[in-house]
C-alpha cells in the first residue's frame, strides 16, 4: 500500500514537473543502443546519457544513475561512469531471451526517476539450412524443403532462391504455417538445370545453405497409373493380364513400374520382379497364379532411371483366374453301421469338400463307384459329401472323384474289407499335444506300407454323444494338427487309423486338450467310514465336462474347528483316502480340490465327527465288567452258601418255635406286659429271643383311596423285597424274595399304614421241642410258624389245617402251595427250599400280598379287623389291650400234643397280613 502511494506521488510529481518544464514526456536521457539484439552468451554494454536540462532540473549527474533489469537493480560493479552525463552498464553472458533494461536516478536525492528504458532482445543467429531437397509433382509447381537447424529465438526469415545459368527467378518466401518449405510459383522447366539454395537471416546474421543443381525432371513424382483392368485367360488358368493407362508425363519421360498382387483374403502383397517392369508399358501378364482364385493388383510408377519419386499407389483392381481340374482327390472315409440286417451292412461313405486351392473351380458333383468284383460295380453321382449304401459282407473297392467345369480330380480309392476282416498293425507311440494354438497329433508309422491315415476326433462329454470329425493325411505323414474348430478346455478323443491297401488297420486313441484350465468344480468328498482315530474319505471322479484338463492330483484339506488346516495330496487315480491320526470325538471339516496343470478347484466342504469310542470298545469294557460283576456275585453267593450258618446266625437268628413256646397265659387274665419284661421271670432258661414292634399309626382310620392303596402296597412290597427286615421270616443273605414286614423300618411302615400295630413276638418258654405247659400267646402276628415249619417240615402239615380256616383263603392257598412243594421235596435242604419258594413265587407273592393287604385294608378290614388294630394300637399289646377285641383266634391244634403253628389271620383291623 505504501509503495502504491509512493508510485502515485511520483507520477504526480513527474506530471507537474514536466508541465512546469513545458515539455510533455520528454525523457531526461537516452540509452544506446535503443533496440539491441544480442546473441545469447555474449557480452552487452549499454550507455545512458543524461540531458543537461534534466541534470540541472533534478540536480543529478551520471554518478546518480542506477540500472535495473526487469525491475531488479543491477549491481554497481557493472556500472562505468564515462563522463558527467554518461554511465554505462555491462552484462556478460546474456542468457535470457528478452530483458528490460532501464536507466534511473533519484531526483532530489530521494525520488526514483526513470530516465529511459530499452528491451534487450537476445537470441542466436540462424544455422545453415541442411537437407535441401525439391520435388516436382506432375502438373504442379515444384516444392523445396529443408531443415532449418536450431531455434534462434529471433524472427528468422528463410528465402528459397533459384536460378538458371541465364537468369534468376523470383525468391520464394515460405508461408508462416510451413516455414521450412516453399513452393515455387512457376512451372518447372524440364531438362533445364536449375540451381536452388536457401538463405536464412535474422537480426544476428544471415546464412546460406548449400546450392543444389538439378534438372527438375529428375525430381518428378508422376501421377499414378490409372484405369487398371484385370483379365483372365481360358487357355491358361494360372495367368491374369493387367492393363493400365500411364500418366501424361509418360509422353516425354520413360517410366518403370512396381506391380503388386495378392489373393483376395491375403494380407501381404507379392511383388512382380522389378526387372520385368523396368520399362514403359501399359500392360503386364502375371503368371504362376492359382486357378480359380481371385487376385487383387495395384501398381505405381516412377522415372525409369530411378531419379525422382515413386508415384502414389494406383487404385486396386481384382480378377479371378480361370478354373482348372481339381488338383487333388478328395479325402475319403467310411463308417459301417454295426447293425447287420439280412446279410447287408449299411455303409456310410463320406468325404471332404476340396479346399478352393485344390478344387480349382466350382465342384459340380462327386462320382462314387463301388466295385464288388472286377466286373460288378455301381456308380453314384452325388452332390452331397456323404453316401449311405447297403453292402453285402463282401469286400468292396470304393472310388471317389470330384468334378468341376474343367475336369475330374484323381480318384480317391478306399477298400472296404469283408465282414470277417481282422484289422491289425496300428500306429504306435500315438501322442497329442498343443502347440501354437493348435492340437497336434504325432505317431510312429507301422512297418507296413500305409496308403493314408484317417485322424478322427470328438469332444468327450457326459451330456452329449461323441460326434466325430475327421481328416485324411497322406501315408508319409506322421505329424499333423487337427484342422477343425478345436476349443479350449475340452477333452478330445483322437483316433488315428492307418489305411492299408487291403483295408483299414487297427486304430489307436489318445486324449488331449488344446488348452487346459482349472476344473469347473471340485470333487464332492464324503466319508465312507469314520473311526475313532481315522476316517475313510471317498469321492467320485469329476465328470469330464467339469475337468477342463487332465486331473493330476487331488488335495484334501481337513482341520478341526480350531486347528490348523492339513493338506494331503492324493494321486488322481484314487477315489478314496484314509485320514489317520484323527482325534476322537472331534468335528472335522474336510474339503477337496482337483488339480489340472492349470490350477485347481475346491469342492463343497464336508464335516464329520469322529466317535468317542471305537467300534467294539464299549463292548470290550462292558462285557468284562459284567462278567466281573457276575463273577463277584457268584463268588458272593458261594460265600454266602458256604457261610450260611454264620450268616444265618448274624442276620437270621434262630426264632423260637411258637408251637413249642409256652405262654403262660393268653387271656385277658394274662399278666401285664410289663411283667413280661423280665426275662428271667418268664423265661428263666433265657430262651427269650427278640421283640419286634411294628407301629401303624392309628390316627388314619379311613380307608385309603385305591391308588394310594396300590402305592402303599407297592411300598410294602418294596420294603419287603429289600430284605431289610430283621423280623421273623427275614431276608436271605443277598436278597430275600420272601416278603416280610419288619419292625426295623418303623417310620416308613408307620407312614404307610393307617394305624399303629404293635407287633409282638411270640414268646414261648419252650424251645426246640420244649413244650410249654400252658399256651401263652402274646399278641402277635408273626410268621414264625412258617419259619418254624421250614426248620421242621412236619409243621407244614399244620398249614393244611390252617387252610381250612375261614377268611384267609388266598394266603392259605399260597402257603399250601409252598407246603406241597415242601412235601414233595423233603430231602432238599432248608436253604435251598427257601430259595426255591422265593424264586418261584416272588411274583405270586407280591400279587398275594397285594391281595391280602387290599383285602385286609379296604374290604375285610373295614369292619372288624381295622377295628381290632385300632384297639390294639391304643391298648397295651402286652397285657392291657387284650380284652376281647380280637374276635377270632384260631387255635391251631398241636401235633402230638404240641402247637403246630400260629396264624393270626383273622384280625379285624390293621390290614396286617402275617407272612
Amino acid at each position, binding site marked *: 500500500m505504501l509503495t502504491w502511494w509512493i508510485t502515485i506521488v511520483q507520477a504526480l510529481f513527474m506530471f507537474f514537473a514536466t508541465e512546469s518544464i513545458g515539455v510533455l514526456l520528454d525523457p531526461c536521457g537516452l540509452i544506446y543502443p535503443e533496440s539491441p539484439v544480442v546473441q545469447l552468451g555474449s557480452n552487452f554494454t549499454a550507455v545512458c546519457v543524461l540531458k543537461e536540462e534534466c541534470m540541472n532540473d533534478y540536480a543529478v549527474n551520471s554518478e546518480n544513475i542506477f540500472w535495473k533489469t526487469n525491475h531488479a537493480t543491477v549491481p554497481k560493479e557493472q556500472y562505468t561512469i564515462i563522463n558527467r552525463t554518461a554511465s554505462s552498464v555491462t552484462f556478460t553472458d546474456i542468457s535470457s531471451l528478452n530483458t528490460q533494461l532501464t536507466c534511473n536516478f533519484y531526483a532530489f536525492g530521494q525520488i526514483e526517476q526513470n530516465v529511459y528504458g530499452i528491451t534487450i532482445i537476445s537470441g542466436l543467429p540462424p544455422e545453415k539450412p541442411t537437407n535441401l531437397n525439391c520435388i516436382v509433382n506432375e502438373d504442379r509447381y515444384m516444392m523445396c524443403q529443408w531443415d532449418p537447424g536450431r531455434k534462434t529465438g529471433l524472427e528468422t526469415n528463410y528465402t528459397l532462391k533459384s536460378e538458371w545459368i*541465364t537468369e534468376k527467378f523470383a525468391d520464394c518466401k515460405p508461408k508462416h504455417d510451413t516455414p521450412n518449405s516453399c513452393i515455387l510459383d512457376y*512451372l518447372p522447366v524440364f531438362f533445364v538445370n536449375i540451381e536452388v539454395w536457401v538463405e536464412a537471416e535474422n537480426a544476428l546474421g544471415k546464412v546460406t545453405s548449400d546450392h543444389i543443381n538439378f534438372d527438375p525432371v529428375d525430381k518428378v513424382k508422376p501421377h499414378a497409373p490409372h484405369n487398371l483392368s484385370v483379365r483372365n485367360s481360358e487357355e491358361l488358368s494360372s495367368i491374369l493380364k493387367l492393363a493400365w493407362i500411364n500418366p501424361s508425363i509418360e509422353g516425354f519421360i520413360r517410366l518403370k513400374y512396381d506391380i503388386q498382387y495378392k489373393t483376395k483374403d491375403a494380407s501381404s502383397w507379392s511383388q512382380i520382379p522389378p526387372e520385368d517392369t523396368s520399362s514403359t508399358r501399359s500392360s503386364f501378364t502375371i503368371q504362376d497364379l492359382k486357378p480359380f482364385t481371385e487376385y487383387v493388383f495395384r501398381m505405381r510408377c516412377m522415372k525409369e532411371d530411378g531419379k525422382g519419386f515413386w508415384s502414389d499407389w494406383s487404385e486396386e483392381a481384382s480378377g479371378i483366374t480361370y478354373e482348372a481340374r481339381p488338383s487333388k482327390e478328395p479325402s475319403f472315409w467310411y463308417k459301417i453301421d454295426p447293425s447287420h440286417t439280412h446279410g447287408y451292412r449299411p455303409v456310410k461313405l463320406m468325404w471332404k469338400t476340396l479346399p478352393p486351392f485344390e478344387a480349382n473351380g466350382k465342384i459340380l458333383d462327386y462320382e462314387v463307384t463301388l466295385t464288388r468284383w472286377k466286373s460288378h460295380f455301381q456308380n453314384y453321382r452325388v452332390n452331397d459329401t456323404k453316401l449311405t449304401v447297403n453292402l453285402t459282407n463282401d469286400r468292396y473297392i470304393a472310388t471317389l472323384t470330384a468334378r468341376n467345369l474343367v475336369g475330374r480330380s484323381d480318384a480317391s480309392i478306399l477298400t472296404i474289407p469283408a465282414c470277417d476282416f481282422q484289422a491289425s498293425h496300428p500306429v504306435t507311440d500315438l501322442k497329442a499335444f498343443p502347440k501354437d494354438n493348435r492340437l497336434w497329433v504325432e505317431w510312429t508309422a507301422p512297418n507296413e506300407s500305409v496308403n493314408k491315415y484317417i485322424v478322427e476326433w470328438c469332444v468327450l462329454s457326459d451330456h452329449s454323444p461323441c460326434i466325430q470329425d475327421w481328416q485324411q493325411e497322406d501315408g508319409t505323414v506322421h505329424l499333423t494338427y487337427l484342422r477343425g474348430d478345436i476349443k479350449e478346455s475340452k477333452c478330445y478323443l483322437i483316433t488315428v487309423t492307418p489305411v492299408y491297401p487291403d483295408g483299414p488297420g487297427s486304430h489307436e486313441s489318445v486324449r488331449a486338450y488344446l488348452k487346459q484350465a482349472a476344473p469347473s468344480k471340485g470333487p464332492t468328498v464324503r466319508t465312507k467310514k469314520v473311526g475313532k482315530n481315522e476316517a475313510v474319505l471317498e469321492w467320485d471322479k469329476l465328470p469330464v465336462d467339469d475337468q477342463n484338463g487332465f486331473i493330476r492330483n487331488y488335495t484334501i484339506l481337513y482341520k478341526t474347528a480350531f486347528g490348523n488346516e492339513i493338506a494331503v495330496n492324493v494321486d488322481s487315480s484314487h477315489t478314496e483316502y484314509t485320514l489317520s491320526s484323527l482325534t476322537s470325538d472331534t468335528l472335522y471339516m474336510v474339503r477337496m480340490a482337483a488339480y489340472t496343470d492349470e490350477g485347481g478347484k475346491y469342492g463343497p466342504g464336508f464335516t464329520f465327527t469322529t466317535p468317542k469310542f471305537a467300534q467294539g470298545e464299549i463292548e470290550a469294557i462292558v462285557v468284562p465288567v459284567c462278567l466281573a460283576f457276575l463273577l463277584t456275585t457268584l463268588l458272593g453267593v458261594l460265600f454266602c452258601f458256604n457261610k450260611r450258618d454264620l450268616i444265618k446266625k448274624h442276620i437270621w437268628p434262630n426264632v423260637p418255635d411258637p408251637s413249642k413256646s409256652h405262654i403262660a397265659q393268653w387271656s385277658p387274665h394274662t399278666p401285664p406286659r410289663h411283667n413280661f419284661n423280665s426275662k428271667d421271670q418268664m423265661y428263666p432258661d433265657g430262651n427269650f429271643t427278640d421283640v419286634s414292634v411294628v407301629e401303624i399309626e392309628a390316627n388314619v382310620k379311613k380307608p385309603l383311596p385305591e391308588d394310594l392303596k396300590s402305592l402303599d402296597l407297592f411300598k410294602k412290597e418294596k420294603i419287603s423285597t429289600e430284605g431289610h427286615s430283621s423280623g421273623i421270616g427275614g431276608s436271605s443273605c443277598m436278597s430275600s424274595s420272601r416278603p416280610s414286614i419288619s419292625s426295623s423300618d418303623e417310620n416308613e411302615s408307620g407312614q404307610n399304614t393307617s394305624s399303629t400295630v404293635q407287633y409282638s413276638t411270640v414268646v414261648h418258654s419252650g424251645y426246640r421241642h420244649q413244650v410249654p405247659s400252658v399256651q401263652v400267646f402274646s399278641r402277635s402276628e408273626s410268621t414264625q410258624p412258617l419259619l418254624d415249619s421250614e426248620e421242621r417240615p412236619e409243621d407244614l402239615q399244620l398249614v393244611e389245617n390252617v387252610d381250612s380256616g375261614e377268611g384267609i383263603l388266598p394266603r392259605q392257598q399260597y402257603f399250601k402251595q409252598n407246603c406241597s412243594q415242601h412235601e414233595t421235596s423233603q430231602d432238599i435242604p432248608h436253604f435251598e427250599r427257601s430259595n426255591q419258594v422265593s424264586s418261584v413265587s416272588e411274583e405270586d407273592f407280591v400279587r398275594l400280598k397285594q391281595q391280602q393287604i387290599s383285602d385286609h385294608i379296604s374290604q375285610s378290614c373295614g369292619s372288624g379287623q381295622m377295628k381290632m388294630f385300632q384297639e390294639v394300637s391304643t391298648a397295651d399289646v402286652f397285657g392291657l389291650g387284650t380284652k376281647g377285641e380280637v374276635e377270632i383266634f384260631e387255635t391251631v391244634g398241636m401235633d402230638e400234643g404240641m402247637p403246630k403253628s400260629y396264624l393270626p389271620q383273622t384280625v379285624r383291623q390293621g390290614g396286617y397280613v402275617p407272612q
Partner: protein
Amino acid sequence: MASRGRACAAAGYWPLAAPYHSQGEPFASMVDVLCNHDLMDFPSFHADGKRKNKLVELYHIFSYLGSSLGNILQYQRTLNPSDQNLHSKLSSSVGTMRGILSNVFCHLCNKYHVGHMDVAPVSDTSAMSTFENKRLGCRLLGKYKQVITELAQAF
C-alpha cells in the same frame, strides 16, 4: 550433344505442337489460306551451316518464338481471360522456350565461349486488330510446326 537432345525432348512436350483446331468461320474452310502466309521477320535457319552458326540461329529462332508466345499469352489473357487451361499451357510453353534458350546459350558459352547473344526484338502487335492477332498466332504456329521439324533434322 546432350543439350541438343534435351532441346528436342522439350519440343516434344510443347503443348502447342498439338494438332491445330479451327476456330470457326472463316477459319473453318480457309485455315491453310489464312495461315500459310510466311512471317517476314522470322529468323532464318541454315541447316547446312556450321554447328556454331546453327546453334546461334537456333537461339534466335527460339528467342523469336518465345517472345511471340509471350505476346500471344498476353493477348489471350485479354481475349480469353477465363481460359486458364490455355493460359497455363501457353505459360508452360513460354517457360519451355526460355529453358531451351538457356540450354542453347549455355552450350554456346561452354563450347564456343559465346558470352553474349543479341536478340532481335519482336514487332509489337498491340496495335493490331483482334483478327490480325489471331491470324498472326495462326501463322506463328504454322511456322513453328514447319521449323521444328527442320531443326530436329538439322541437329
